[in-house]
């Protein structure tokens, strides 16, 4: 068992897949969080004609099949596509773009529904306290911090588990754009199941450790809570 684990850790191919997955997931979660949280909160804050349609489109995009998003990004960044000259095809950057397209609507849609429930009463409270616009906005974000954190974790989970878009846009190039999920998919097609399962376990352990760290960071400020 130990030897086997050691062989995995020393395998440069696997380690590179871990690294690529990690860089990609962290980048796409970070970008999607900024975009999604901002969009979700603004959508709740302002009303404008066609808002209901926007909300509905957002909800639809929450369930967009990753391969479809991957295909769209592929068409955009392929050599003859409109963004072809930027040479993003088969790069981690390209993969991140595709993932941002998948994850942002999920985060913004979740944030929107959380904010719609909580923000009106927070706004009234802030008004009675004499808070100005920025203080009110800050209070809403602070009061929704747990929900925001949860949305980010969800986004990260989507990111590391995603195969289709990453495969299409990244091209599954060994050592460069091969992620853990695309490695597993490849191993399966070669009939190498044990390594595939092992990699899956590594992936889960990684997610578990990261969540644990986030939870620890979260708890720090909230020791007083005893409910």
């Amino acid at each position, binding site marked *: 068992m130990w030897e086997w684990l050691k062989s995995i850790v020393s395998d440069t191919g696997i380690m590179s897949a871990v690294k690529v997955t990690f860089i990609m997931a962290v980048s796409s979660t970070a970008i999607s969080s900024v975009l999604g949280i901002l969009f979700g909160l603004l959508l709740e804050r302002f009303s404008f004609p066609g808002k209901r349609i926007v909300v509905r489109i957002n909800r639809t995009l929450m369930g967009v099949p990753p391969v479809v998003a991957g295909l769209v990004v592929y068409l955009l960044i392929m050599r003859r596509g409109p963004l072809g000259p930027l040479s993003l095809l088969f790069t981690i950057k390209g993969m991140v773009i595709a993932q941002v397209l998948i994850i942002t609507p999920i985060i913004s849609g979740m944030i929107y529904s959380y904010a719609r429930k909580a923000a009106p*009463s*927070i706004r*009234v*409270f802030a*008004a*009675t*306290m*004499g*808070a*100005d616009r920025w*203080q009110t906005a800050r*209070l809403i974000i*602070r*009061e929704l*911090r*747990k929900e925001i954190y949860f949305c980010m974790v969800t986004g990260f989970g989507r990111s590391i588990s995603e195969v289709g878009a990453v495969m299409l846009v990244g091209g599954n190039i060994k050592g460069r754009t091969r992620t853990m999920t695309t490695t597993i998919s490849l191993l399966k097609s070669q009939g190498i199941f044990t390594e595939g399962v092992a990699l899956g376990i590594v992936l889960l352990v990684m997610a578990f450790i990261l969540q644990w760290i986030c939870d620890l960071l979260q708890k720090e400020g909230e020791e*007083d*809570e*005893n*409910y």
Partner: protein
Amino acid sequence: MRITDLEKTIGTFHMEVDDLYIEPEKIHGIVGPNGCGKTVFLKIAAGILPPDTGTVDYDGLSPRDITMMFQRPYLMHTTVYENLIYPLKIRGIRPDEEEIDRMLSRVGLKEQKRQYARSLSSGERQKLSFLRAVIFKPRMIMVDETLSNLDSESEELFAGMIGEIQKVRPVTWLIVNHQMDHICRLCDEMHYMEKGRFVKR
């Protein structure tokens, strides 16, 4: 404060206030049956809800001088202490710790100072909400049923504290209640509402 030609329609509810003068630094009680528009009136007077037409003249008071207490107060997801000092924080005022401890022990919340605010009982929540509303020394305080449904001990406590505030630094109070008996002994002036209008009695 003077309210003139106020109109507000929400669904089937319609409110009309031609002319109402609220004498400053006095305790005003607003009494009326459920659904007569007391809360709506209070929200408009507090500047939280915009009227359809009409004006509310605050006689020089800014929105920061006015606060409102709700029957079910909003408590932030943090400690009792942090909730209490929030209005000071947003005004950049440093809290006077001794004063805060004194206030908290007065209402019996000293022990719960570092506790999560949402773990308080509903009576304790109202006490915290009361302290939070008076701590930043507003000039006008709207009270939406906070003082109804209290046990007699808490009622005494709030009445006593309001009395003390009025002695030291008078505030304009607008206290809404659906029952007469609880507040009339506290109030300088009573107003009666019926179906969205103020009526003489």
